[in-house]
């Protein structure tokens, strides 16, 4: 009768001296794993986004949250005139990154995406460019 009670208290006592699992956010901050799928970023190369506006990410996106509009630059090359991700719709599945044929898109470890206005959740190209 008394033994089970002692066993239980033993476990409680053990946990009292273990490192706590809970993070005291925001005082303490987690380090996301390398394959964490946070906010998207458009990779930059030679001072411009690598994206060639092939439309594969909006095609594959199951949440239909990506809007791309292609444009023609001075060299007659294709680039993304408009690139928007609506994070309110995004389900962070990462298919867009997988689909990208030119490795122009990645998902960063940024997870603090709360905001006050709906409009602020629409990430236009300038906000998405890799810093």
């Amino acid at each position, binding site marked *: 009768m008394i033994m089970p009670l002692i066993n239980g208290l033993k476990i409680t006592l053990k946990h009292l001296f273990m490192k706590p699992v809970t993070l005291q956010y925001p005082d303490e901050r987690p380090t996301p794993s390398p394959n964490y799928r946070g906010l998207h970023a458009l990779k930059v190369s030679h001072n411009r986004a690598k994206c*060639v*506006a*092939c*439309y*594969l990410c*909006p*095609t594959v996106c199951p949440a239909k949250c990506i809007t791309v509009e*292609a*444009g*023609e630059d001075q060299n*007659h*090359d*294709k680039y993304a005139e408009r690139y928007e991700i609506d994070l309110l719709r995004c389900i962070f599945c990462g298919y867009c990154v997988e689909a990208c*044929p*030119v490795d122009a898109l990645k998902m960063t470890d940024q997870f603090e995406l709360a905001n006050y206005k709906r409009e602020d959740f629409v990430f236009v190209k300038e906000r998405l460019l890799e810093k």
Partner: protein
Amino acid sequence: MVNLTIDGKQVTVPKDATIYDAAKSAGIKIPILCHDKKLHPFGGCRMCLVEVEQMKGRQIPACTTPVTEGMIVSTMTPEIVKARKLVLELLLLKHPIDCPVCDAAGDCDLQNLTYEYEVNANRFQDEKFQHKIDYENPLIERDMNRCVHCGKCARICDEIVSYGAYSFLNRGLEAKIGTEFDGPLNCEFCGSCVSVCPVGALISRPFKFKARWWSLNKVKTVCSYCGTGCQLTLGVKDNKVLTTIYDENQGFHNGQLCTRGRFGYQFVNSDKRLTTPLVKKNGRLEQATWDEALGLVRQRLSEAKIAGGATVAGLVTPRLTNEELYLFKKLFGQGLGSDNIDHSAGYAHEALTAGASESLGYPASPASISDIQATDLLLVVKSDAYETHPVLGFEVNLGVKRKGVNLRIVSDKKGKLSRLPNAATYIHRPGSEVVLFNALAKVIVEEGLADSTATSLPGYAELVQSLSAYAPTAVAGQCGMSADDITALAREYAKAEKALILLPIGIGYPGHGKVLAQSVINLALLTGKIGKEGCGVLIMGEKNNSQGAADLGIHPVAGGRDAAGILEGCVSGAIKTLYVVGENPVVSYPNRKKVESALDSVEFLVVQDLFLTETASKADVVLPACSFAEKNGTFTSVGKAVQKVRKAIAPIGMARSDFEIFSDLYSSLGGEVPKGLDATFNEIAAEVPSYSGLTLEKLGENGSVYPVTNKPRFMPVVGSAQESTAGAMALVTGSALNHCGTLSLYGEGPMYVCPEGYIELNNGDATKLGVEEGQSVTVRSSVGEVKLKAKVSMRLPAGVVFSPYHFSDMSINGITDGASVTWVTISK
């Protein structure tokens, strides 16, 4: 028929079929890159290799090998797959892997085959091509680095379009598809090459980077430019028509389109489209609500109705659907009690509504489009038949080159058709067509070449009598042709077993009216060439539904005013309310000054259009209407095919379809509007004899050609010589290849290639006048004067000048007055 076995399946095909055709008919897919069903077999890509047991298992191309009895064919052995993979590897050696930025991706034969045959590595290595990309023209971009040398572009341009813009240059590894002297492309820009290119070597620039192929919604409909009735697939995304898509199985033309059909769709989503009704307030057109605008129109119409209907008139464009035209007629006939309705300036439909109607008993052509390739001798009135109906021009090309059709052209100038093999062009004096056709008939009567059935037709005796003054020797001078030529042409026509006459009509051709149509039909009746396959007269209505407007009788039928009468009535005050739907008389009807003063003086002008045209800007109320891409309905083509138009996008802005607007007005006048399109079409079928038995459902994918019963009679006609003015030049008007009516002015494609009006003159005349290409000249007639750019060419005879009629700026109707020939003087 030949029996053979393909992959264990028994197949029976005609003896002129190839293995590829046989496999296709059995539902077996053989991959191809260089083959197209419209073109002669080429056998260049080696993708369609198959094994034939009788040929000791050798691999032979399926697209060029004819079938033989008892052949045993395998299309998918491991050896064949290996060979096809090798072909793909070799192609991918040079082909850049830039699918992400290539517009062909998704619709690329090479991409699809690479995926299907799982070619994901290459055993070979080589450098890619480094050809210069041709960005110079605004419609077709040529990136020869992507070319796989299938030669389809060169072949379609030669075989079907008969332009010959492309050819293979150099040999071996250096071979490439090039243009003349390897310069930038400068052709008629029909885009046929773009449509057949299996990769992205040729792409449409207006569509470049606009959307990916797979994201487009494809809507099958009918082109809204000329009367040919080409079927069209629109590529639609986000309520925008972004491109036209090639579908080789569409229509009699197998998806083939002309420059305006393929590149002229931009008017649908043009920024210039009207999005709200406009009402004139204090002399200015201001935005208004539908209630306000329609309220004004309703009030005017009900007043006119009470006054008896004679003070109201309507001009409508034959670009509307049959259902809309029918409702328009009802609105005026039953609703208002007015017979003052007309279209196409009144004269441009006469060939059908008066000419054919009186001679044959129905306002349509006694022939269909399929007759063009089935005939032996094709007599084209005016080389412009190519410019007015380019896809029918392709049919002529195919007939002449593949079926051995003899082409004879009687025209006031040479044209592209004149250059076809064995084509003979007889240049006559402008405006002498009727005299010439009477002379041809005279020769046939004189020489006893008339068909035995002709003498028993009503009016034969009168015809013979009326022809007495038209002996070739007597009228040779008037026609400007030698008597021998006239006689020879008449004999040729009469002796041909099957002969077809093409007669283009339109606002640009005031001479092609009732009289000419009847003299042409007389000739055909005289030789018994009506009512048989490959025979007849094809009267080619100008607009997409000109034939439908003629069938429905959108013209005065009980003594009402015709177009000219309506405009006169506006000036005299007899017409107080004018309702213009889609027409732009200020630019297209003859004598601009007269039209403008008529529209200025009419009390109340309502214009219903897509754009704020020159006519609409004079209106008291402007109603925004829908383009063909925003509505369902039917168009009737030159060849009497009733075809379905399908809605591709929602109306732009607040625009409403003409059907809705007419319904509203008609019901406000107390009329009962048919419920929906089906009911309207059924009413049409009940009222128009030739449509009887048709329903929207029965029309199906490809439409339906309605039959006609001939009640032929001869209608003797008098042709008069053109009186010339000393020292003046003969101005003839017509269509430019890139344009159709005034609608194409709002399409970017046509405007890139042909942005403004011009006056074309013979190089001899140009030297005499000291005029150079591109120089601005003043053209003066008794009506007025205009300044136009000169275009110097060799196709016009001396003393004749040509100008297209579509353009609003310095429009040629500033100097014409509805005569078939206008006498002008040209000065620098």
